């Protein structure tokens, strides 16, 4: 279920744990129901989002040729920092 609050869009995410215990998001379901495969993790780091409002681990994900900012929030939910309202 996606829920949007301003620029903060909570999304359903499919993720995998690597053999080293790393959490790797594989796809997400956007608010219109479209499933987007994550082709590549460009980088991940601890980060706050002042735009969406929250903090956690930021995954910059390459999706259909574009970079999106996906956060694994400190409350264990996933949100996308939307580019537009």
């Amino acid at each position, binding site marked *: 279920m996606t829920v949007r609050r301003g620029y903060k869009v909570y999304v359903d995410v499919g993720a995998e744990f690597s053999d080293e215990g790393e959490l790797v998001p594989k796809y997400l379901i956007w608010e219109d129901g479209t499933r987007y495969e994550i082709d590549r993790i460009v980088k991940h780091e601890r*980060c*706050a989002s*002042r735009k969406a409002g929250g903090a956690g681990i930021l995954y910059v994900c390459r999706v259909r040729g574009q970079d999106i900012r996906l956060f694994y929030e*400190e409350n264990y939910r996933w949100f996308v920092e939307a580019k537009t309202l």
Partner: protein
Amino acid sequence: MERSILHSDMNCFYASVEMLHHPELGEKPLAVGGDPEARHGIVLTANYPAKRRGVKTGMALWQARQACPEVIFVPPRMDLYLRFSRLAHEIYADYTDLQEAFGIDESWLDVSACIDSVRDPLTIAQEISERIKHELGLTVSIGVSWNKIFAKFGSDYRKPDAITQITRDNYKKIVWSAPAADLLYVGRATKRKLAAIGINTIGDIATCNPKILCAHFGKIGYILHTFANGRDETPVCPENTVSPIKSIGNSTTTPRDLVNNDDVRMVIYLLAESVASRLRDQHFAGSLIGISVRDNGLFSFTRQKKIPMPTNISDEIARYAMQLFAANYQWEKPIRSVGVRVGDLVADEYWYQTDLFVDPKMREKQLKVDVAVDSLRRRFGHDIILRGQMYFDRVLSGLDARAEDHMVHPHSYFERGNQLGKEVFYE
């Protein structure tokens, strides 16, 4: 080798966490405070825009609204703040194992072991400040010095988002010219007493003959003198930082010796009321009740017990404390000092998860009474409403247990017994 100590203080902590989570509010004045709907509760923290308009911590919500009509009240989310506090501790842990929490939003860090030719303490402070900003979206003010007292002074000296280094070269200029009240543990009452003997600045304390301070303040006089001269050697004590506030307690030395259970009950109720009220202010309830007792000789003891469910109701705390006392004291000597403490704290939103044998309606009533008493006292002073038993001896019950002189900080500096010989802090 000289130690390198940082004191890191997250600015307007609760309000800043809320601002991060409410980007739509921008720089509007915001205050975190209990239940605005129920029209009670106080401001726990305000952001800078609200502070500039006169909103202060501890104000009743209606007073804050009077000072700043546009202020936006946000109910506290203790669990969220505790998680952000833990995230900050995780960042600190990348620099040292020696960190000591002081409340939920402040920490001392002994970073002596990371100092090398590349990194001096100031560089480490800058790095920590940048990381907290980037990773948590919050700002800190950090004090850097060779002892904990001046590091704490430095973090208070400039805020928000600032770093102040107090060195052997500048401490006389910066610290000594500051008002005495800026020194850790100079509260309002001590400040007044100091002023009465002509001591107004920290420099005045530092240069005063310690014997004079001792004559007026007892051992604490020596301690203040040591603090003011930067000679505090208290180590940064590593500890479990998952829940930084472990307990809230008050203790007091009584105006006369206590000679029977009725005397003790009076003091325990006074202390329990103040502890319960502070718990409610901070939105905590606790399920470990402790007492400390010292007689007029050398004997003292502490006892604690686990209770079935967390509480912040003064009557419950007092009853358990009294049970502990009655079961453990044989009245060989009169009593000089009593303390009450509540530990194993949880956010108070969980307190109503009652068990089978407790009447939740009764508890709700007791809580309502407590909250009403809080609000009366906030407006009209402590003595506006007292329990009947307090009239047995108004000298004894005239202690205002919320006054800072009796207050044990949520996380007392002297908690583990300090290195300087003062023995009156019980927590």
